[in-house]
C-alpha cells in the first residue's frame, strides 16, 4: 500500500564499501548475509542491555511466587534462600563482563539455562515451541499470500467489478482490524455466542495422548489445533496482499511489455502468469519476508488467546516471570528466523528477478 518508492541511484554515492570488501561485498547475497548477522547482533545486544537496565531482579519475584504458592509453608528467609539457589548467574558482575561471557557462550551456540528451570537449556525450551509458531505462522501466511495474490490479480483484471469491490474493500476491512481484536471476535462470536466452533477442544498444538509422527491422523490433528491461529494469520495480512497485488497488477498491466505481448498474440493465460503476475508478485516477495517478522510478533497475543504453545506465548510467560535467558533467547531466535526469512526472500527475489542478481544493488 505504500507508494512506489523511486529507485535510488546506487552509483557513486559517497563511501564505497567495495573498496573494503572487494568482490565479496559486491555479491548481493553476501551483503544480505552480512546485514542479517548485523541485525541479529544488534537485537541481541539491545535486549541484553535493556534487560540489565530493569530494576529489581528475578530473585525477588521468585521469592514472592514461592511465598504465594507455599501457603505459609515458607518463611520469607526460606523463600529467599531457595530463590537465591535457583539463580546461577551473577547479576552483580560488571556489565561488559557479563556481555562478553554472554556473547562468548552464544558463539558456542549456548543460550544458557532458564532462570526458573535451571536444568533446562534455553535452546531446548525454544526448540520445543518455535516449530509450532513457524508452522502456524508459515501456513497462515503462505495461504494468505497465495489467496491474496490470486484475488488481487483477479480484482485487477476485473477492475471496478463487484468482485473487485468485495475483495479490495473486504480485504482492507479485515486487515485494518487488529489481529487480537479479530481473535477476540472469533472467540466471542464463533465460540461463545454462536457455538460454531468448539474452541476448547482446539487448545494446544495436538490432542493429548496422540502419538506424534508423520501419520495422516497426527497431521490432520495439528492442523485442527492450529486452525484458529492460522485463520488469524490468514485473515490479517490478506487485505494487504489483495490490495498490493491489485495495484501491482494494475501497474504491470500498463507496462509496455504487456501490450507488446498482447500484440504478439500470446494467450491470455500466458500473459496473466508469466508477464503480469510474475512481475506484479516480485515486489510482494520482499514484503512477504518483512511480514514474517510482524506476524511472529503478533503471534504472542494470538497464541495467548488461543492457548497455542508457540514462541510468542513462551515469550509473554517469560516476560511475566522475568526469565531473562529465555526472553533473550526467544528474541534472538525469532530475530534469526525473521532474518532467515528475509534472506530467503532476498535469495528468491534475485532468482525471480534477473535484474537483481547480476546488477546488484537493489537487494535489501
Amino acid at each position, binding site marked *: 500500500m505504500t507508494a512506489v518508492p523511486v529507485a535510488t541511484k546506487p552509483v557513486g554515492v559517497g563511501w564505497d564499501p567495495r573498496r573494503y570488501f572487494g568482490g565479496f561485498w559486491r555479491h548481493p547475497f553476501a551483503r544480505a548475509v552480512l546485514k542479517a548477522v548485523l541485525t541479529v547482533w544488534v537485537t541481541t545486544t539491545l535486549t541484553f542491555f535493556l534487560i540489565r537496565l530493569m530494576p*529489581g531482579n528475578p530473585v525477588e519475584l521468585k521469592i514472592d511466587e514461592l511465598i504465594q504458592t507455599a501457603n505459609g509453608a515458607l518463611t520469607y528467609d*526460606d523463600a529467599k*534462600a531457595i530463590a537465591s539457589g535457583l539463580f546461577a548467574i551473577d547479576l552483580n558482575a560488571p556489565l561488559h563482563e557479563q556481555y562478553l561471557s554472554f556473547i562468548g557462550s552464544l558463539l558456542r551456540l549456548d543460550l544458557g539455562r*532458564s532462570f526458573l528451570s535451571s*536444568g533446562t537449556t534455553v535452546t*531446548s*525450551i525454544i526448540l520445543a515451541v518455535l516449530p509450532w509458531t513457524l508452522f502456524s505462522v508459515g501456513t497462515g501466511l503462505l495461504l494468505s499470500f497465495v489467496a491474496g495474490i490470486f484475488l488481487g490479480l483477479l480484482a485487477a483484471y476485473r477492475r471496478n467489478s463487484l468482485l473487485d469491490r468485495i475483495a479490495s474493500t473486504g480485504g482492507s476491512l479485515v486487515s485494518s482490524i487488529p489481529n487480537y481484536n479479530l481473535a477476540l471476535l472469533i472467540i466471542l462470536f464463533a465460540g461463545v455466542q454462536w457455538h460454531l466452533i468448539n474452541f476448547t477442544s482446539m487448545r*494446544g498444538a495436538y490432542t*493429548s495422548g496422540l502419538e506424534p509422527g508423520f501419520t495422516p491422523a497426527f497431521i490432520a490433528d495439528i492442523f485442527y489445533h492450529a486452525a484458529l491461529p492460522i485463520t488469524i494469520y490468514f485473515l490479517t495480512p490478506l487485505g494487504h496482499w489483495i490490495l498490493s497485488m491489485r495495484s501491482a497488477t494494475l501497474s504491470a498491466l500498463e507496462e509496455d511489455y504487456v501490450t507488446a505481448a498482447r500484440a504478439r498474440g500470446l494467450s491470455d493465460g500466458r500473459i496473466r502468469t508469466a508477464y503480469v503476475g510474475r512481475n506484479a508478485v516480485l515486489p510482494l516477495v520482499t514484503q512477504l519476508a518483512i511480514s514474517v517478522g510482524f506476524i511472529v510478533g503478533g503471534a504472542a497475543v494470538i497464541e495467548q488467546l488461543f492457548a497455542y504453545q508457540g514462541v510468542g506465548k513462551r515469550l509473554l510467560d517469560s516476560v511475566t516471570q522475568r526469565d531473562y535467558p529465555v526472553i533473550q533467547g526467544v528474541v534472538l531466535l525469532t530475530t534469526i528466523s525473521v532474518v532467515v526469512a528475509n534472506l530467503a526472500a532476498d535469495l528468491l527475489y534475485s532468482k525471480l528477478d534477473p535484474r537483481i542478481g547480476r546488477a546488484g544493488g537493489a537487494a535489501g
Partner: protein
Amino acid sequence: APTTGGPTGGGGGGAKGGEFHGGWPYVLAPQGHWNFFATNAILGGGIYTDLFIPSLAVYRWVDAKWDFWLAQSAQQNGDTYEVKLRSGIKWDDGTPFTSKDVATTYWVGRLASYGIWNFIDKITTPDDQTVQFHYSKPTSLGERLILRNGIKPDKIFGALGKKAQDFYTGGGTNSSDAGKALVAEMNAFRPDKPYSVGPYKVDPASVTAAQLTMVRNTGGLFADKVNYDKVVVYQGETAEITPLVLNGDVDYATHGFPLATDKAFQDKGYKIVRGPIFTGPALYFHWENAPEFQDKRLRQAVAMAFNRDEAGKIFYGSSARAPQYMVGFADSLVKNWTTDQSKFNSYAFDAAKADQLMKDAGYAKGSDGIYAKGGKALAYELYFPSDFQDWAAAATYTADALTKFGIKVTARGAIRSTQLPDTNAGKFTIAMNPWGTGNPHPQPSLVRPFREFSKDAPGGGMKYPLTQTYSGGSINFDTVLDDAITGFDTAKQKDPIQKIAQAFNELLPCIPIYERLNNNPINDKARTAGWPGLDDKIYQQGGGDNFAIVMIMDGTLHKI
C-alpha cells in the same frame, strides 16, 4: 496441637471408574520437568501433586487435626517428632515405600531450603517404617513443615540425598560455595519420567499444552480407595480455563474467577464453593515517601474512608469480604489465637468518622480535596499489580473512592514482575501488596507487613519502623514475631500474638482491604458426584489442603 486421628471421611461409597477433570496452569516441558524439588516441575506446587507424591498427612482445618496419608501416625517425643509410615505401599515401579524415601526427601529438601531445617538438625530412620526429626529450635510451626511435603522417591533422588546428608552432617551450609554448587546440581537434576507413590500417576505421553492425564497407580497409597480411573488436568490460567468450565469439560477448578465468570457459572447451574484463602490485598504506605501516613489517624481514616467490602465484591462478588478484625491475619484464625477480641476495631466504612479523624489530625477538607495545614493537597499514586485482575479491580475502585473522599489517589498498575521489585525498592507512595497467608498459624501472616514488605525487602520496602508505641506500650514487632512461634505449646504463643494483633489493629501498618474466598466451580452434572452440600465443613479447608483432593483420596468423590 493435636497430632492424632486416622483418615476420616467417606471411604469409597461410590462406584469405581470414570474420570475427574480439573485445571491447573502447569509449565510444559522442557521448561517443565519432573524434579519436584526445583521450581517449574510439571504441576509442581499445585494441588494435584498430592495424587502422585502425597505428603505424610493433610490437615483438616475445621477440626484442627491431621488426616494421615503416607504416615500411619505421628508423635512428638520431647524434641523429637516421630512419624510411623504406612506399610505395603509401593512406588509405581514396584519399589516399596520406606522411611528412606522420607529421609531422602528431607535431605534433598534441605538443598531446596525446606523450612523445617530452620528448626531441626537431623533426621534419623531407625527402621523402614519410622522417621525421626530432631528439633534444635522447637517450634509449633514444625509439624506442618514436616507433614505437608510431597514425598519423593529415594530410588531417584537417593544419590543426591546421600550427598546432601554427608555435606550437611560434615558441617556444610547452603551459603558456602560447595553448598551453592550442590544446590545448583539439585536444581539442574532432571528425572527422565514422572514417579508416583499416590493413587495416580501422570502419563508422560499425555502431556500437551492443553491437558495431561493421570492414570491409576495400582500399588500406591489409597489405590483401592479412590474411585476414578483417570484424572485429567487441563492446563491454563483463568482466561484459558474459563471456557473449558463453561463448556462442561472441567469438573472442578481452583482459579480465581471474576464476577462475570462467576455469574456465568451460576447460570450454568454449577455449584460455587467459597472457601477461605486467608489472604487478600492490602494498602501499604511508604513511611518516607508518604510521611503524612506516619500519623496513625490518617491510616485509620483511610481504612474507614472507603467501602473495603465493596472493593472486594467488585471482582469476586460474595467471594470476598472485608475482615472483621483488622489484625493482620484471617478472621477465622482470630478466635483460636487471640485472647481478647473485644478491642479489635473493624474499621467499617464510615466516611463521617474518617472525616473527623482527618480533622483531628489537622487536615481541612475543601471542595476539591483534603489539605494539610500548609495548604498542600493530599495526592498519591496507588501502585498495583495489573496482571492480578482481582486486585486491579480493587485498586481502581479504591483509588476512585479515596479520591471521592478527598485524598487524590491515582491508580497506576504494572505487571507484578515490575510492580513488586519497585515496591520492594520503595518506589511508591501507596502500594497494593498481599496480607495474610494460608497457614493455620497466624505468625506467617504477620511476617508479611513487618518483614517481607519492610525490613527484609531489598531496598527496604515500605520502611515501616518495627518499634512502635500503641495502647499496650512499646512493641518491637520483630522480636514478638519470634516469640509467637517458639516452643511446641501453642497456648503460650497466644500472648505474643494477642499483642501483635492489638498493635496491628491500632496502628494499621497496612490496611487489609478484603479477605478473599475462593470461588471454585463444581460441575456435578457431567462426570462427578459425591460432593457434599455447600455448607459442609470440608469446604473450609485452606492453605493448599485442597478439599477436592482430600475427597478424591478418601473416595468421597466418584463418577455419576
